[in-house]
């Protein structure tokens, strides 16, 4: 089996990220769920790099795609949508926080203005 450049580099990068996430988990910056999710994601990326044809053919057969190229394309789209969803959730949470800060500030200023000097 001929080993191509990306089949070495991508698993190494994935290993690096996994080690980093492991360290962050030990330091308490990630919870178990986040660490596991991240680990599984990078293992998936590494496996896809090492066995690109086998995995893409398997995914194509699983979901009924005609070719493995289509399978990879749709898988990629699915992952992009998922990340879009996560980013939107983050944005919603941040909007909420900004509103709360805004309201609290307004109420504090109002209270100060009402207080007899």
């Amino acid at each position, binding site marked *: 089996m001929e080993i191509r450049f990306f089949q070495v580099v991508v698993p190494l990068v994935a290993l690096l990220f996994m080690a980093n996430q492991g360290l962050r988990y030990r330091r308490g910056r990630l919870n178990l769920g986040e660490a596991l999710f991240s680990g599984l994601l990078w293992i998936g990326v590494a496996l896809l790099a090492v066995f690109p044809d086998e995995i893409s053919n398997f995914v194509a057969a699983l979901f009924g795609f005609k070719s493995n190229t289509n399978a990879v394309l749709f898988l990629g789209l699915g992952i992009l949508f998922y990340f879009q969803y996560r980013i939107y*959730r983050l944005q*919603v949470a941040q*909007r*909420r926080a*900004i*509103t709360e800060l*805004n*309201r609290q*500030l*307004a*109420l504090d*200023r*109002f*209270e100060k203005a009402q207080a007899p000097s």
Partner: protein
Amino acid sequence: MPERLPITLILPAFNEARIIEQVIRDIRQVGNFRIVVIDDGSTDGTAAKVLAMGEQVVRHPLNRGAGAACQTGISLARKYGWPYLAFMDSDGQHFPEDLEGLITTMQAQQADLVIGSRFAGTQNQIPYLRRFFNTAANILTNSFCTHHYTDTQSGFRLLNQRAIAALDLLQDDFSYCSEMIILAERAKLKVAETPIRVRYTDYSVSKGQDFQVGLLTAFHFLWKLIFK
């Protein structure tokens, strides 16, 4: 007249300097209410005009939307122990005289939240597009409610102490109108409607929701209901 109840009138306002003085004058003619304007990050001097008239203003440093302004009004009522809150649009669309109808309905039906309905009984001249948006919003909101409401998007509302204590709005934008009704039903509050009149001017129409804002509002409403 409406002074029978110690009502605080909350006017959420965003860039209403052109009309806010007239709205306050109209309210003063109806009764001696405590008026509090929630200035939602206006940049046109709305707050200065209200202060010059001797009324109270709570100023949001940033524009966060009508829902955020209403929740600030509810927080104020809790903090200062105000027993009744009435919300009115500050674009001059509502008639302060109609507050009497809301009070009467609250007392007669022992309601906790009374909504002034533009579509219940009165023959209001409402632009077709606005009527269409409201119908769509009613269908969407009513599908999450146990009762049927004729005007889920009205900004003219009266809340009693139970409603003030129970309602915590999370929606910043106009979808707070639907959220308030759904939360009230979940909190087992009695919700009632009463007819109100409205006047649509070029100004008030320009301040209201358009198609794009309506779609976004519906999206935010559904998103928070589903993914909360």
